């Protein structure tokens, strides 16, 4: 982490970040990532497999968590480890509002060269990722 890391302690909370997600974001992510699974853009296909509607790519939600990590770290390229389970889909309605995904973080542990962070990623107050956590390099 950047300079603020020198003052961090285990248990400290990091500033929660909110990201609005719309259908347009999912289309853009599909193109950028190469994941064109229709459950991420077609209500017809999504509902046919038992989903409530189009859902965000799990990896898109994880990318938002990584974006929050970059902000906390003060620069890109400082993530040494990041991982999660995909436990609950983020359903994205076909409107201009979309949904809001919130990424909260707590300092779990500090070592000489790394900061271990426990994340909480929620949508409409419900956790959407299971046990998300990361390790950032202290810079």
């Amino acid at each position, binding site marked *: 982490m950047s300079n603020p890391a020198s003052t961090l302690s285990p248990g400290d909370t990091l500033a929660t970040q909110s990201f609005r997600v719309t259908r347009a974001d999912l289309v853009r992510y599909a193109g950028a990532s*190469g994941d064109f699974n229709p459950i991420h853009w077609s209500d017809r296909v999504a509902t046919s497999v038992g989903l409530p509607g189009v859902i965000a790519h799990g*990896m898109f939600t994880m990318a938002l968590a990584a974006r929050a990590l970059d902000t906390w770290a003060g620069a890109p390229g400082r993530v040494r480890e990041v991982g999660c*389970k995909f436990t609950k889909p983020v359903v994205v309605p076909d409107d201009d509002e979309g949904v809001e995904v919130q990424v909260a973080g707590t300092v779990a542990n500090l070592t000489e060269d790394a900061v271990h962070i426990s994340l909480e990623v929620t949508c409409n107050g419900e956790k959407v990722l299971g046990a998300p956590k990361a390790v950032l390099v202290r810079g």
Partner: protein
Amino acid sequence: MAVDTALVGRTFPPTEPYTATREKVLEFARATGSEFDGHTAPATFPIVVAFAAMTALMEDPDVGIALHRVVHGEQRFTYTRPVVVGDRLVATLSVDSLRQIGGADIIGTRSEITDESGEPICTAYATLVHRAEEPA
């Protein structure tokens, strides 16, 4: 049909090299709203090559996976260094584990992502859940 346990320990051929051009990295950074310093790719960018390696596994007719029954259960990356513009990325996927729970196959995969010369960049661990077919 359950996936054959002989799959465990199998390593698939490396993917074709994928060039992380400035344009592709910028496109990914924009799509995820990530800051781009002109050089460093977002942390989850390597999913692009890991995804290609997983697709090759899932489409292998000998493996017995029905693509539409696969759900991405878990993902983890560990990095030796970040991906940077100009990297020629190669992913080599191995199947580390296979469990059966309630008729579903839980497939643990590991993709070693290197540059073209084989120098490590990161490891992408993915758990794929292959759901059982509904009774006819």
